[in-house]
């Protein structure tokens, strides 16, 4: 593996993406809404609305006892805010990298095919694995950068707005570190590889985008359903989940490289 060639592809792809507002705008706006505005509204309304807090607490009581144990030492208002910011909104941090990377990786091969730029690359000594890795990293790096930045902003917003309630910095919890540094990367990598695979098989960007949507959307919905549950499991189980994703990543990357055929990437226009 020649990393110079890998990073040349990565850098080129990121440069190209950065030069189009079309992709940049949703990459900035959506994370901003998810990690800035929604948590702010949630925290502020729980702080000032008694009825909201009460109905939320009723809902929490129906949840598994492990969760109740974790919340044991807190007051009602703290419980409600903690529950929303630590468990419920965690799913946003999988939605963000998945969304960002899908936007970029759908464009990956399909966009180059559409603009007839790929064939030139295929004549150079770059290997299939280097090309695929370069393309995957071109989505992975921005996705992780935006995720970590969002994580930082979220931590500041949550702690600042909830400070009058907790009188201490309670976020991020230990499980959040594992989520951000282990689960988010491995899940993102899987989604990106999938979308890159699709992108290499279809003709154009639109097609790649819609097929990617059909595959990615269910994954997003399932994660949203699962993440809240995962977050109050033990750290060990979260680590193990990430490991499973890592194995899946490796298998998928291997499959893509094996099933990659340069001749199918040439666009034939009559």
């Amino acid at each position, binding site marked *: 593996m020649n990393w110079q*060639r890998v990073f040349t592809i990565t850098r080129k792809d990121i440069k*190209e993406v950065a*030069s189009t507002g079309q992709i940049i705008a949703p990459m900035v706006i959506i994370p901003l809404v998810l990690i800035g505005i929604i948590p702010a509204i949630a925290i502020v309304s729980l702080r000032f609305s008694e009825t909201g807090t009460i109905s939320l607490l009723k809902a929490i009581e129906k949840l598994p006892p492990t969760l109740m144990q974790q919340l044991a030492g807190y007051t009602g208002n703290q419980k409600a805010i903690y529950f929303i910011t630590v468990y419920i909104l965690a799913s946003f941090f999988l939605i963000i990298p998945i969304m960002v990377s899908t936007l970029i990786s759908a464009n990956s091969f399909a966009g180059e095919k559409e603009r007839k730029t*790929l064939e030139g690359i295929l004549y150079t*000594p770059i290997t299939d694995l280097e090309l695929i890795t370069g393309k995957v990293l071109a989505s992975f790096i921005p996705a992780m950068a935006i995720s970590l930045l969002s994580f930082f902003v979220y931590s500041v917003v949550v702690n600042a707005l909830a400070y009058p309630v907790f009188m201490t910095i309670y976020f991020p919890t230990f499980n959040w570190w594992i989520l951000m540094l282990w689960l988010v990367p491995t899940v993102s990598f899987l989604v990106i590889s999938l979308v890159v695979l699709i992108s290499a098989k279809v003709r154009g960007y639109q097609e790649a985008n819609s097929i990617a949507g059909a595959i990615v959307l269910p994954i997003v919905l399932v994660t949203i359903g699962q993440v809240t549950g995962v977050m109050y499991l033990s750290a060990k189980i979260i680590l193990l989940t990430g490991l499973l994703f890592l194995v899946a990543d490796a298998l998928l990357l291997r499959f893509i490289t094996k099933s990659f055929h340069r*001749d199918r990437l040439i666009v034939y226009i009559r």
Partner: protein
Amino acid sequence: MKNIAIEACHISKSFGNIAALDDISFSIQKGDVFGLLGPNGAGKTTAVRLLNGLIKPTEIETISILGLDLQKNIQDIRQRVGVLTDTNLYERLSAIDNLLIFGMLYGLSHKESSQRAEHLLEQFELSDRASSKVETFSKGMKQKLSIARALISDPEIVYLDEPTAGLDPEASHELLQYIIKVSSDSSKTFFITSHRLEEMESICDTVAILDRGRIKAFGSPHDLVNQVFKDHWVTVTLGNGTRLNISLLKLELSFVQDIEQSNNEVKIKVDDRASIPKLIRYLGKLDTDIYSIAEDVPNLQDAYLAIVKEK
């Protein structure tokens, strides 16, 4: 063997039931400028893609590039070859970035790539636009940059697939001057495809005429013309209303094989090129008004048309 850059033996490629290439064989000397000439759909691009291992032949005996077997040494070969086919540059990136990316994909360091890129931009007179986005370039400038891109790694073989396609005559003429300039570097082998014969005759050492997937003729442009046109004709232009006495001419000159007379022009076929001076001396002594006597010299285009037209 050592001097052969490209050798292909019995290569066929079909797409479904279309035979894009039908049992072609040829070899090209190192340092030559080779022209693969043929009409649209003849199989030129397919040949370039096959020779670079981008598509696989349906049937093959061997393809050997720079003495290496293509299938076994594809990585080494790609390192030593530069290719321009009908592909686009990265429009949203600058000219210099387009070259740098390719330099680095060929394994040059960033510094080497920059030096080569700057040198090429200068050679193609694009230096002042080096940092402009390619989308702002004219078609002719893009094509120049594409050729520069194919040259970035200082390759031993350069493929240029229809380099002047889609250019207006002026831009096409300009581009050709650059191609002549770079292809005169005798350490490189050039493989150029085109359907514009008039452009290729002066550039190519060797040409092949490809028609519907088959090589119809191969050789230097001069040999090729001689292969197709074995007869020697001389055209004589006469004054208005003047005629030559054809029967007398035939009688007195044994080397004259055929005569066609029309208006004030007479076409005379002779048995050998060496007979032409004798014919001219004879005509000079006549009492007829003759305005010009000229040997018919067919060019590559005439030969090509004659080959491509015949079934």
